[in-house]
C-alpha cells in the first residue's frame, strides 16, 4: 500500500507525506516543551487536510515541520520518499522552492514591492528567466482575479486582495504541496469565502492542501481533519463527522 503510494507520487509528481514518531522539543530554561509529541501520520497526494486544535497546541509547529522550515527534534519525516533529516539547509531551500507553497495568516508581503513583484519573488530565487517570470506572474494574478491590481503595492490593496496575492505567490512555482496557516484568520467572512474558493480550486487541480484553522466551517471544506492537543494528534476524522463538540 505504502509502496504503491510512493510509486504513485513519483509517477504524478505529487508529494506523499510520511511522519513517523515526529517530536519537536523546545528547551525553555531546563524544561523541555513538547510542541509536537510523537506524531505519526500519512497524507496522500491530492488530499485536503485541515488541522485544528486549541491555541498553543502545536498546529503551526506541525505546519512548519511539514514545510521544511523546522527540522523535527526526533523522528522521521519523509516527503515524497526523501528523508528530510538527510538533507542540508540548501537542499531544504530547494525543496521549499519547488515543492511547497506557503499561505500565511499575516500575508508576509514585501511592502515596497508591487503585487507583481511579490508574486515574482520565488521565481527570482529559483533562477527563472525574466521573460518566463513575467508570463507566469500574469497568469498567477489572473487566476486570483487581480490582473488589474498587479502594479499596486500591498498597502494599496484590501486584506482580501492581499491574501489573493499571497495565493498567487504560493502557486506561481506550481508546487504540489500547499500549506496554509489560518489563511482566513485576518479576513472578513466575504473575503474569507473568496480565499476558500480559491483553495478549493487548487484542490480540484490536484494540489495537496494542508490548512490550519480555528474555523469549523473552513475545516468542513477539507476531506480530513486532524485535531491536535498538546502536541498530540488526538482525533482523526472525516470532515463530515466534525461537530463543534468533537473539538
Amino acid at each position, binding site marked *: 500500500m505504502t509502496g504503491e503510494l510512493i510509486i504513485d507520487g513519483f509517477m504524478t509528481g505529487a508529494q506523499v507525506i510520511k511522519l513517523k514518531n515526529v517530536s519537536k522539543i523546545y528547551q525553555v530554561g531546563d524544561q523541555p516543551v513538547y510542541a509536537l509529541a510523537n506524531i505519526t501520520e500519512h497524507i496522500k497526494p491530492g488530499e485536503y487536510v485541515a488541522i485544528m486544535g486549541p491555541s498553543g497546541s502545536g498546529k503551526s509547529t506541525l505546519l512548519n515541520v511539514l514545510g521544511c522550515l523546522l527540522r523535527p527534534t526526533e523522528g522521521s519525516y519523509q516527503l515524497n520518499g526523501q528523508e528530510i533529516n538527510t538533507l542540508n539547509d540548501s537542499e531544504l531551500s530547494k525543496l521549499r522552492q519547488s515543492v511547497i507553497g506557503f499561505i*500565511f495568516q499575516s500575508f508576509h508581503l514585501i*511592502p515596497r514591492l508591487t503585487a507583481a513583484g511579490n508574486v515574482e519573488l520565488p521565481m527570482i530565487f529559483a533562477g527563472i528567466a525574466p521573460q518566463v517570470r513575467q508570463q507566469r506572474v500574469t497568469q498567477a494574478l489572473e487566476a486570483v482575479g487581480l490582473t488589474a491590481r498587479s502594479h499596486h503595492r500591498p498597502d494599496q490593496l484590501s486584506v482580501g486582495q492581499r491574501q489573493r496575492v499571497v495565493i498567487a505567490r504560493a502557486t506561481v512555482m506550481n508546487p504540489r504541496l500547499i500549506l496554509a496557516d489560518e489563511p482566513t484568520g485576518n479576513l472578513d467572512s466575504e473575503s474569507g469565502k473568496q480565499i476558500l474558493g480559491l483553495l478549493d480550486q487548487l484542490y480540484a487541480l490536484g494540489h495537496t492542501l494542508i490548512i490550519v484553522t480555528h474555523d469549523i466551517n473552513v475545516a468542513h471544506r477539507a476531506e480530513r481533519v486532524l485535531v491536535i492537543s498538546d502536541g498530540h494528534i488526538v482525533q482523526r476524522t472525516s470532515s463530515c463527522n466534525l461537530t463543534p463538540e468533537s473539538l
Partner: protein
Amino acid sequence: MSLRDCVDFAFNALKGQPIRVSLCVTGIAIGIMAIVVLTALGEGARRYVVNQFMSIGSNLLLVVPGKTETTGAIPGFAGAPHDLTIMDSQAIRRNIRSIQRLAPISMGTETVRYGERRRQVPIVGTTADFLEIRHLRMARGQFLPRGDPQRGAPLVVLGHRVAQELFPDTSPLGQLIRVGNWRMRVIGILAPRGTQLSMDMDDLVLVPVATGMQLLNRHSLYRILLGVRNVSDLETTCGRIVALLTERHGEDDTTCITQGSVVGTFSSILNALTVSLAAIGFISLTVAGIGIMNVMFVAVADRTEEIGLLKALGARSRQILLLFLIEAVILSLAGGMIGLTLGWTIVQGLTTLYPAIPASTPLWASVSAVLVSFAVGVVFGLLPAHRAGRLDPVHALERHAS
C-alpha cells in the same frame, strides 16, 4: 538568481530608505573625496618641487664642503672640512672635461646703499657661467665679466627688485653703490625671474666671486655649481670631482650632489607625505565603513520578516547573504563614485585658483579609492549580511507586521 536580479532587488530595498542611504553614501563620499583631494595636494607639492629643480636644468652638479653619509641630504656643519677654494674650482675646470659650465659661489648678506636708500640683501659672489647655469637673463647691461675668477672687481649686477627699490626714478646702470664698505659700480640688472629653489632671484646682488669672498670675509666657497655636457656623465663626473678634491685636500672632505639625488630625496619625502595624507583619508573611510555596517545591521533587523519570508520561498542562506552584501557594496560604491567626482572637481578648482601648484590626484589614489570603497562595502557589509543569511526562518516570520 542572476547578478542583475540581485542588484535590482538591492536597489529596490535601498530606495525605501532615502535618508539612511544618503547619510551612508555621504560618509563614504567624504572619505573618498578626502583621499582624492589630499593626495592631489601632496602630489602637487611633489611636482612643484621637482619642477623647480628641473627648471634649472637636470644636468647640474653641486659640490659642497663637508661630508655626508647619505647622498641627497645637503651637508651642513658636521666636521671641520678644508676650505673649498676658487683654486679648487679652477682645478676642476682644468682637469675634468665633461664639465661644460662651472660657477663657484660665495654667499652672505650685506647692506646695499645708494644715497639715502639702503637694504639688507643676499650677496652672491660668482662668475659669468652662473647666468647660464641658473637660466637667468639680463634686463639691461652686462652680466659679470669673464676672466680670472681669482681677481676681484668692484662690479655688481642687481636683481630686478633690488634695482627697482634702490633706483626708483633713475637708471642704475653705471651708478656707484655701496655694498658694505665697498663702493661698486652697477653694470647690469637681471630680468625678473622669481623664486628658484627658495632663492629669490629678484632680491639679490651678484658680485665677482673673489670680491664676494673678501667683502663677506669668507675663506671657503659656499658651493660650486657645475653643468655637465651629458646628463649620462653626472655620476662619473661627481666621482672624478670628489677624487680630485680628495687628492688636493689630502682627505675626502667634500660632497658632490647630483640634481637627481636631490630631486629624488625631495620627491620621496613628498611621496611619503602624499601617502600619509592618503592614510588620513583611509581612516575617514573606515569610519564611514562602520557607518555602513551599522546601517546594514539596522536593515537586517528591520527586514527580519522579509528575510524569513524569502527563506520560506526557497531563498538559500547564500542568496540572502549576497543580497545584503550587494546592498552594502552599492552604498559604498555610490559613495566612492560621488567622492571621486567631488574630489576631482575640487582639485580642478584648486588648480584653476592656484596654477602654480600642479595639484593632481595620482592614478593609484583614484584607482585605490574605488577599490577600497568596494572593499569597504564588502568588509563592513559581510557581518550584517552573514547575520541575515543565518536567520532562522520561523523565528524571522513570527516578527510579522504587514
